[in-house]
């Protein structure tokens, strides 16, 4: 993965905004910190986020800065009550987070690797997502969860999942997938301030990505996608890491005279149906790119929406470029083949446009 600057990550008005080039991981931590300062009810929970404790003084050591160093320095600043280290009990502490959200706090849970959400799946699906509805609207669950997804780092089958489709499937839950430093700042802030349970998924391949980030605080409205490139020949739909892959593919396609439009979905539930339809009505061709395995995936959902609501504008079959229907293999070569690469997108676009 190389770092790639988006043409215009913020949309119109980007020019002249004060800001700087930053790393995804630093923006993530800074945003967490800003939200904790902004609202005293916001606190963080997760395994190893205190990074150990001194045997004598019982003081947190912050040895790792939390998983993926996402919370480095925060325990010193906010103390162990607000950076609450949890034993390895995902069901228990996600459930406790739901309970604390139901009683007025705004917990943020670090689930480390995305795969571990399965251990806490019942608390997420049966309690976090359903409480508001089944109790007739008398309560809310202002809970944020985050975890790292994706293949590409040699972690093999049980530490490389991208099954965000399963979360987006669940009514009551919101799901966001930042793809760069700009979007993680706006989406994480929006997630924490939102009154519904929101799951934010970081692809591991994005963590060291750099990109322009405005200095001012801002939120990105949940449920909105964005164009990261305009073009008339074909629409490429990306989410999380695949937004970057689409962007790279689009730039290479441009050298062949194919102008692709790139949409970064940013939110998966709710998602921006309008931008999808608008773009496809313009380009009449679409390739949806998803690292998740294909069956009943978000790629399927976007394809289904387009095949229903933009049917009359389609000049060609709706294409998906996805991972295979398989677990993630360990071997690097196989793992690379598992991940949708820019080259795969390019091949599909060429075929779709009859330019083989």
């Amino acid at each position: 993965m190389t770092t790639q600057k988006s043409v215009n990550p913020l949309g119109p008005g980007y020019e002249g905004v004060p800001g700087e080039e930053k790393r995804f991981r630093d923006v993530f931590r800074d945003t967490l910190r800003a939200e904790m300062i902004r609202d005293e009810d916001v606190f963080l929970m997760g395994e190893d986020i205190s990074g150990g404790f001194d045997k004598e003084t019982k003081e947190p050591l912050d040895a790792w800065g939390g998983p993926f160093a996402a919370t480095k320095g925060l325990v010193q600043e906010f103390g162990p009550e607000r950076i609450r280290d949890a034993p390895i009990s995902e069901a228990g502490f996600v459930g406790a987070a739901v309970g604390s959200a139901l009683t007025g706090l705004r917990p943020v849970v670090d689930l480390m690797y995305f795969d571990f959400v399965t251990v806490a799946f019942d608390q997420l699906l049966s309690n976090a997502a359903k409480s508001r509805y089944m109790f007739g609207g008398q309560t809310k669950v202002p809970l944020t969860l985050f975890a790292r997804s994706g293949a590409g780092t040699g972690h093999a089958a049980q530490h490389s999942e991208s099954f965000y489709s399963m979360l987006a499937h669940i009514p009551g839950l919101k799901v966001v997938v930042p793809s760069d430093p700009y979007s993680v700042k706006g989406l994480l802030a929006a997630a924490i301030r939102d009154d519904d349970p929101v799951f934010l998924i970081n692809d591991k391949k994005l963590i060291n990505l750099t990109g322009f980030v405005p200095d001012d605080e801002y939120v990105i409205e949940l449920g909105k996608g964005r164009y990261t490139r305009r073009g008339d020949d074909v629409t490429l739909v990306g989410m999380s890491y695949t937004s970057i892959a689409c962007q790279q593919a689009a730039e290479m396609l441009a050298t062949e005279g194919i102008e692709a439009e790139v949409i970064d979905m940013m939110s998966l539930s709710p998602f921006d149906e309008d931008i999808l339809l608008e773009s496809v009505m313009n380009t009449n061709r679409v390739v949806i790119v998803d690292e998740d395995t294909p069956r009943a995936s978000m790629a399927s959902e976007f394809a289904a929406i387009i095949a229903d609501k933009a049917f009359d504008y389609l000049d060609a079959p709706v294409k998906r470029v996805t991972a295979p229907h398989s677990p993630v293999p360990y071997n690097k070569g196989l793992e690379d083949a598992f991940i949708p690469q820019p080259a795969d997108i390019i091949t599909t676009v060429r075929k779709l446009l009859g330019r083989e």
Partner: protein
Amino acid sequence: MDISKEKLEWIYTTMYRIRRFEETMLEQTFKGNSMGVTHPSDGQEAPPTGICAHLTDKDWIGSTHRGHGHCIAKGLDTHKMMAEIMGKATGQCGGKGGSMHIADFSKGMLGANAVVGASIPLAVGAALTAKYRGIENESVGVSFFGDGASSQGVLHESMNLASVWKLPVVFACENNGYAEATPSWYAVSADDIASRAEGYGMPGVVVDGMDVFAVYDAAGEAIARARAGEGPTFLELKTYRYHGHFHADVPLNYRTEEEEKYYHDRDAIKSFEKRVTEQKLMTAKKLKSIRDAIEKEMVVAVDFALNSPMPDASALYDDVYVNYSNPIPGLR
């Protein structure tokens, strides 16, 4: 005895209200007026009553599929409960929850919960909120769950969390001897579930769950501990459900008449009556006036529920989320 007169009256009122609510609810269920499955808790009046006697609206409880008793002991309105069971718009959850999902956040009631064990960490989370806010002295969490639920891993995770974080929680295990038809002697690998508490760094107390005074005393200590910031306690309340697992279950298919008689002989309400009248703490007349009031309450509750309107069709799409209306009212 160390209980005020008001408290005694409250205890009797609450136990009798639970008893009569369940009986009335079953009647209505058999008349076809409930919209779904119901799990009656009559027989088990002492645990919720003896525990909630120490709680206020600022304290939180988590509950189970068998939650009516917990609701009533926590002060929920029986009219709205009955209406909820009948699926009405005036129900506690607007008719969208039903018997297994009655909640009242204004009363500190986190909800009945139909997934066995799933509500346990919610009470831990409520206690975490109290500790975070520094208000343990006025807000503790009580988790009600059954002997069957004690086999769920999430209980053990919750106990460990509560102990490691020293949270103001009481784990209230209502051991009624059965999980559906399965006896606890089969499914639980300990003589007393409470014996597990020590391994999680908290006291474990076995309590006669048919004796509301015993429950009241044990709960008093546990809740005082929690309010004092001394951490969690585990109570195992040995009790019995008089009816089947759910309304249509026939318990004699898996338990004996002798066993049923043994518990009915130790009925929590009858022993309360005996004790307070013998010790002249309450008069028979007072007891009767309480019962009479409850009888009337039940008639009104049924009436209210039966005559309440159904929810609007639009309620199907409401309250999936807080701040945007459901974008997908069924693709059709």
